[in-house]
Every structure is written in C-alpha cells, then in structure tokens.
C-alpha cells in the first residue's frame, strides 16, 4: 500500500505539490485528476523517486522511501509517450526488466505479455514502425514485465486520438484488473480517469481538493471549479439554483452543478407548460442549437434561471426562439455546499 503523508514538493523554490496526503490500497487503481500544471505529474514523479520531497513522506507498506533510488523502488512508470528504447525491438523493450533480473524463461514471459496487450507477432518490430496506440501497448507490457509493486501511469492515453483512446482505455482497464496491479494514474482527462480508476483524487494548484470513491466524488463535487472540471456543464447559484433544485424535487442548496444531460426537452405535446411530473416547472426559450449524431445540444434561456445547457432527441422541434418545456433528471445534478 502506498501512503503519501503531508507531501510537499518544491520545484525551483515554488511548491508544485503542497501538503498532499493520499493512500493507494493494494490492488486498487487510483486516479489523480487535475488540469495541466496542477502538480499531478510532480506528485507522480516524486512517488517514482524522480523528484525529492521537500517535506512529508512517501512510504510503501509503512516503510519510508526517502533515499531509495528510483531503480530500487520497483515502481514501474509508464510515460505519456511511451519512451520506448528506439534501438531495441519490441520484445527486447518488453524483456528489459526481465534481463535486468536475469529472469529464466524471459522469452515466454515476453510472449505472454505481448499477447495480453494484443500485440502477438510484434516481437521483432522496432518501436519506430509502430502506431501511437501500439507503442503505448508495448510500454504497458514493458512496465508490467517489471512485475512492479506499483504501476505509475502518466497520462497513458493522452497522446492518442479519440478512437484509439477509447479502445485502449477498455483494454487497459481489463489488463490492470486481470493482473491485479496496484496503480496510480495521473491524467487531465476525466473520461480516462473514469474508465480506469476506482478511487479519484482531484488536484488543483498543487493541492488535493477532493478524494474518494469515484462515484462519490462524481456525485458530490467539493466546489464549483471541481464540478466544472469533472464535466458538469454549469454551476448555478442563488435563485437559479433554488429554482432548478425545486424543479428536481431536491432539498435547497446554495449552488448546484448541472450536467448538460440533466435538462431534456420534454415531448412536444407537453410544451404548454402545465404538464405534470418531477420535470414540470422549467420553461424557456431556445437560444441556440447544435446537432450531434446522438442528440441535439441546446442553450435555453429558462425563466427564473437564465441560460442553461440542455439536450433534445434528434427531430424534436427545437429551433432558436421556440419556447420549450424542460424535464429535470435529479441524478444529474450535484448540490454544492449544502
């Protein structure tokens, strides 16, 4: 189990990470999520032993890691762009850590790992001939071959295009679960975090602002900025918040974070505004629309609330200027600050 206790890391005199405490239990996948420059990479590098802590401790199963150099920590790190050794074949890259330890049957283990990441038959290729996704798969296999106590993933999917990212995210999740590897992943992409992690740590400006089980953090962001970073479309305050919460049948709160899909355009037959149900009560004028393959995304000026985002099924009559009724989905709202 990895434990960070009041860890502070300074870089050139400024604190990149300040007073961070967190735990990565054995077998779990913890994601540190934050915008770029929030200090999450520094945190990861400190865990890897690449940056010295200014104060606080990093320990594994209770043993302080201060003074233990990177190569003796058995924490394998996988970089955003793989950092494969360009002059070694795929098999020799993957077998690197095995050769360091003179593991018998290294070849069989390499073949197993290549199979695990879906790269059978790639053993003799050079990294330069691989696509970005293939390179990341090799990097993953190389990290797993080290049989690490802890796997450190630095934005493992960020360098890939959207389609590849989605496929590899699924594979990565499956592989990590199958291997049962304790993993700490840092990312700025909330989808990446959601796809991989079971615990979420949100960082901003070098400070951990929230952590917990992924569903809990998602359902109750600590503050407005966290909510927006977690993919909530808007945060409403005061009267607007009260109106939306009342329409959703939820207790009042000083502000509320609203996902885009929280508000849906009700069927045309109920646009008279007098319809029944929890969604009743929100009516507004469509300001703009944008069509996507799955849904129509709208900005609606709701009476008593102001401009909010909403969605409608394709084909719904949602031209700008039109008055529509909106249904509210309570599960897609997150009250903030009681």
């Amino acid at each position, binding site marked *: 189990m990895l434990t960070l206790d009041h860890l502070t890391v300074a*870089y*050139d*005199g400024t604190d990149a990470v300040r007073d961070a405490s967190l735990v990565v239990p054995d077998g779990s996948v913890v994601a540190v999520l934050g915008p770029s420059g929030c200090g999450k990479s520094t945190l990861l*590098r400190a865990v*890897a*032993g*690449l*940056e*010295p*802590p*200014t104060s606080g401790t990093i320990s594994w199963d209770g043993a302080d890691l201060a*003074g233990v*150099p*990177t*190569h*003796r*920590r*058995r*924490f*394998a*790190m996988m*970089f955003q762009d793989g*950092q494969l*050794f360009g*002059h070694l074949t795929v098999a020799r890259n993957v077998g*690197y*850590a095995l050769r*360091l*330890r003179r593991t018998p049957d290294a070849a069989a283990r390499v073949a197993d790992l290549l199979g695990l990441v879906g790269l059978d038959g790639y053993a003799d290729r050079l990294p330069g001939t691989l696509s970005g996704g293939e390179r990341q798969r090799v990097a993953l296999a*190389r*990290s797993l071959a*080290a049989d690490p106590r802890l796997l*450190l993933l630095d934005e493992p999917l960020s360098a890939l295009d959207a389609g590849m990212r989605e496929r590899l995210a699924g594979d990565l999740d499956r592989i990590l679960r199958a291997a049962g590897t304790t993993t700490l992943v840092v990312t700025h992409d909330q989808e990446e975090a959601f796809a991989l992690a079971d615990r979420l740590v949100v960082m901003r400006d070098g400070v951990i602002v929230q952590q917990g089980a992924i569903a809990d953090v998602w359902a109750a962001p600590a503050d407005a900025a966290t909510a927006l970073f977690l993919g909530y479309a808007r945060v409403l305050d005061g009267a607007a918040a009260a109106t939306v919460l009342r329409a959703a049948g939820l207790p009042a709160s000083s502000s509320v974070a609203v996902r885009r899909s929280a508000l849906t355009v009700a069927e045309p037959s109920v646009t008279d505004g007098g319809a029944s149900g929890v969604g009743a009560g929100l009516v507004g004028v469509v300001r703009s629309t944008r069509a996507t393959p799955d849904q129509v995304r709208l900005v609606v000026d709701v009476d008593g609330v102001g401009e909010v985002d909403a969605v409608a099924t394709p084909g719904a009559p949602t031209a700008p200027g039109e008055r529509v009724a909106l249904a509210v989905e309570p599960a897609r709202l997150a009250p903030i600050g009681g």
Partner: protein
Amino acid sequence: MTRTSTGRTAALLGLAALPVGVLAVFFVLPVAGMLERGLWPEGGFDPGAVLDVLARPRVHRVLWFTLWSSTTATALAVVLGLPAAYALYRPTYPLRGLVRGLLLVPFVLPTVVVGVAFRQLLRDGGPLGFLGLDGTPAGIVTALVFFNVAVVIRTVGSAWEGLDRRPAEAAAALGASPVTVFRTVTLPALRPAVVSAASVVFLFCATAFGVVLTLGGTRYASVETEIYLLTTDLLDLPAAAALSIVQLVVVVGLLLVAGRARRVPDPTVARHATTARPRGVRRGDVPALAATVLLLVAVATPILTLVLGSLRDDRGWTLRFYRALAGDGATGTDGGAPRLVVPVTEALVNSLRVAVDATWMSLLLGMLVAVVVTRRSRSRAERRLRGVLDGFFMLPLGVSAVTLGFGFLITLDEPPLDLRDSALLVPIAQALVALPLVVRTLVPVLAGIDDRQRQAAASLGAGALRTLATVDLPVVWKPLLAAAGFAFAVSLGEFGATSFLAREDHPTLPIVIFRLIGRPGELSYGMALAASVVLAATTALVLLAVERLRVPALGAW
C-alpha cells in the same frame, strides 16, 4: 536544500573535477603566465606597455589585415558555400555523397599542407603562377576560403536538408515567385545556421596560423602569426601579450554572438516534425549544381597541384621525393642543405603516437564535460553552475594555440610542474585544442536524449550505469567515434602550439614540413610536398572513416 539535491551537486562537481583541474593547470595557468609576462613586465602592473604596443603602426597593420582578410574570406566562403549547401543537401542524385565528402577534404587538411599546396599552385612556374598572387593578401584570402567553405556547406546544408518544406510551399501557393520564396521564407529560416557558420568561419580565419605563416611570411601577418613572430623571433613578450588580450576579447565576443544566433528559433530543432521527402533534380537546380561543380574544381586544383608536384622534378615523373622521406634529407647533390634531425617517416610515427594520446585525453575530458553540461538541472543554482562550467570548457576556443603553446613553455618549466621534457606535453596541448570540437560534437547528441528515457529505465529497475548503457551509449557511440576521429585529425595537423612544444629531436610531421619549406634546394621542397601528401592522405583516411559514420560534422557551435 534537501539531502538529495546536495548529493546531486556533489556528484556534478565530482564529474567536473577532472576536466576543471586539467583546464586549470594546462590552460588557465599557461595563459595567465603569458599575460603576466606582458602586463607585469618587471613585477609591477604596467598596462602602459600594452597600450604602447597597440599604438605601433605595425600592430595597426596586423590588426587591420586580420580584420579585412577574415571578413573577406568569410563573406566569400558564405557566398560560395550557399549554392553548394543547397545542391548537396536538397536534391538527390547519384554520387552526391562522394561530392559531399570531397568538398569536406580541405577543412580537414592540416593548415601547413594547405599553405604548401597554395604556394605550389601560385609560385612562379606553378599552374597559376601567371596570376602573380604568390605572397599577396589575395593568395592568403583564397587559401582561407578554400579551407573554410566546407564549414558553410556542412552547417547550412544540414539545416537546409531538415528544413520543413511546407512554409515555402505555402508561400508559393500564395503567389510568391521562387526568388521571393527564398528571400522571405527560406533565408530567414536558414539565418541561424548561416550566422552560426559565418561566425565559426570568421573565428577560424582570424586565428588561422599555419596558412598565413606559410603564405604570408613576415610581410603579411595576422594577429596569430604576429604573436608567434613576436615571441619566437623578437622576444617581445609585452607586445605578444597585448595581442593575445585583443584576440581573447574579440574571440569571446564572437562566441557570444554565435551563441545568441543559436538561441533564436533554429530550424534544425523542429526538423524531426517532418522528414523531408527526397526529390530528384529539377531544372531550377541547375545553377546551383553548376556552381557546385565549379567549386569542386576550384577546391581540387590546389590538392592536385600538390600531389602532382610531389611526383615530378626537372627531369619528369619520379618517386624520389617519397623515397627521400626515409632519409635525412642531406643528399650531396642538393646544395648543402643541413641534414634533418630525424627522417620524415619517424616524424610521421611521432605524429601518430602523439595523436593517439591527444585523442584519448580529449575524449575523456570531452565526455565528462558533455555529461556535466547536458544533465538536466533540478534547481536554478544547479543550472547556473552548469552554465558557468559550459562557458569555462569552451575557453580553449577563445585562445590562440600559439598563446597556449608559449604559455606552456614559460609556466610549466619549474617544479612541481616541470614538464618541459615530458612526452605528454604536446599531446596535452593538442587535446586542449581539440577539446571544444569534441564537446560540441557530443553535447547536441546528449542534450537530444529525452531525460524521460533515463527515468523510464530507472523505473524499470536499471541502476545508473545500466541506464547509461541502455539509453546514452546506443545514441552516443557513433558521435563518440566521430569525435575521436576529429580529435585525431586535429592533433595530426596541429601546428600552432606544437611549434613551441615539440622537442627538436622529436618533431611531428607538420613541424618537419614547415622546416623543409624553409630550407633551400629542390629536394627539400619536393620532400615538403611529398610529406604534405602523406600527412593529407593520413588525415583524409581518418576523416573518411568518420564520414562513414554519418554524424553531422562540427556539431552545434
């Protein structure tokens, strides 16, 4: 600061200790000793003597000659080198590699050899004797251009080769003519490379020693040869020190300019973004190709003249000059020239032995320096320390080899550093002369390695040495071999410092060549030509091997 960062600084200083120590004893001490003789002539500080020197008409002439000859030679080298840089690095065609290699030859020729070749070409009765250029400034400038055009071709050519073509294509699509494209897009992108090449060429021209000494004699002296004449012939140390100071100031200034030019966005940095597709020859390439062919002819002429001259005497073709290389040069028929102290063949063996020593020394120092200055800094203080060390290790570039050699003579002559008779004195001096070249060949390569590669290896369990073997060695071994080749070639041709330090009975080949051309008689002159050919061929062989490694020569200055 934390424990770890103190440890890092200690490790940094530990690595730097050897090069810093060597440089302090064998560079700072001699140069300081030389300056002390000039500035404190009778024990008291007397800068007036130096200022008096700078007021002498002869010194004015020397300074002016150095300035205008170097400027002219630099301008000509750039003008002649640009078309060739284009023709040799942009279109592809058969034999391109061969032409590239041939045009590099002059740069690696020992300076004394170039001097001898041009004398043979320009003297009365020589192939170009009718031009009347022998012993004129024009002859010296021509030789300097001959020597340095390869620098321009190399530096600008490799930048041009890696240039992203799309901005030029975009400009053309916007309606720019080829000339406009060149003027508004290509040339600005090449500017850092051109400035960098021009400053290095100016530096080489302004500190050229062997070429100017053999072609200019005492009539046309540059600052460098004047320092030599003042110290060896006239024993006027204050004057020599004054000129050394002027040279040091100018050269350091130049290096700073070159450094600034390098800091502006350099196209070679972005070159990995796109791999330029090779393309064949187009009609528009013809002028550049023609200019390159002419340049090739111009470069080949002195070399061919040298080779032919070594194979002919009054009576026709002969090998007797080569056969004479094994003897003492005192044949009865030859007007009583005094016998040589050692046969030329023995001088060649001396040269090779010295070059081996100089090579391992400069490689050892150069590697340590390159590692020290390229490792990623963790703190501002560490970064500043590395910056200071980087500048310190480039100092030998700023001081003339002649100053260095003379400084050795006057400071390393008493206990505990009485090294005058040490066989290592010459190799050490040559290693220092070669050091900047070695460092500049290795630094861009080491700096180009993504530090995260080392971190990846470490996180997989590799220790420091293993990381070095996995990440650094595969990238650096070729440049290392290339640097060894350069150091070897520099050492073979080194003349400035060696002329002070080589013992009478233990001369290197360039020294013997210089002695031979100073002696009367056809045999001596013929032997000088033959020995020059041998030296040139040896150097060319070494550099040809380097060229096979395909490492960008000269590194990043």
